């Protein structure tokens, strides 16, 4: 059942983003920025947390989930260390994914050659 919800919710988020790709002139970069900021916002107003509980990877794997993790990390850190947590929480919670992206992208740059277009 959790696989079904992961598919339905995760797919729906992508399909909605596809509308913006097709119907607006937004570049993919702007769409990704929008997803992350939207994820932060939806988590802040208390909507994304329950969605993650419900849809699992369907909510956490899209980039909105990245934003949600930023917000969740900030909230936890503020609870633990006060205002400083607003600065430390977000990147701490997402450090694994970000550092891994840098590492693997760099290794790929080492190993692979650019394809002629």
């Amino acid at each position: 059942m959790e696989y079904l919800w992961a598919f339905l919710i995760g797919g729906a988020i992508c399909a909605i983003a596809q509308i913006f790709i097709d119907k607006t002139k937004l570049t993919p970069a702007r769409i990704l920025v929008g997803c992350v900021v939207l994820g932060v916002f939806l988590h802040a107003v208390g909507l994304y947390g329950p969605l993650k509980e419900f849809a699992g990877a369907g909510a956490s794997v899209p980039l909105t989930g990245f934003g949600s993790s930023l917000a969740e990390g900030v909230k936890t850190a503020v609870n633990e260390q006060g205002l400083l947590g607003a600065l430390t929480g977000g990147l701490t919670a997402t450090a694994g994914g970000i550092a891994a992206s840098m590492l693997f992208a760099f290794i790929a740059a080492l190993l692979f050659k650019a394809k002629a277009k």
Partner: protein
Amino acid sequence: MNTETGKEKGREKQTYKKFAEGRASSSPLLKDMLMAYLFGGGICVIGQALINLYGTLGADVKTSGTLTSITLVFCAALLTGLGVFDNIAKIAGAGTLVPITGFSNAMTSPAIDAKSEGWVLGVGSKIFNVAGPVILYGTLASVIYGVIYYIVGLF
């Protein structure tokens, strides 16, 4: 290797071309949405399987989530390097862009293309072409939320 004369501009264009290609085909909205749904949903199902796998291997909820992100990021970087990712993205559109795979591709693709420009201002900066704005605005939004959350908590 692409060594056209456009240099900076051409390179920038080429970088964006890679991401833009996914939406370049003039296919109708519904078909695009269906493909985005199928691929995006499919990647999330793989993600869920990974979360469960790491869970049964003994990782707690948070750790298995992080490990899942790392695994997906790795796969996307590998597929990008092999030149397969762009072909999938052409069909899948937002289906591969919006999941964390798109974030990984957005770092890997410019990084590989920028090799000829050097390792510091080429790879080192182009790797953040798309990821930089994403991290910047995501972090800014979360800091704002944190400050508001802190102030609200005072009362």
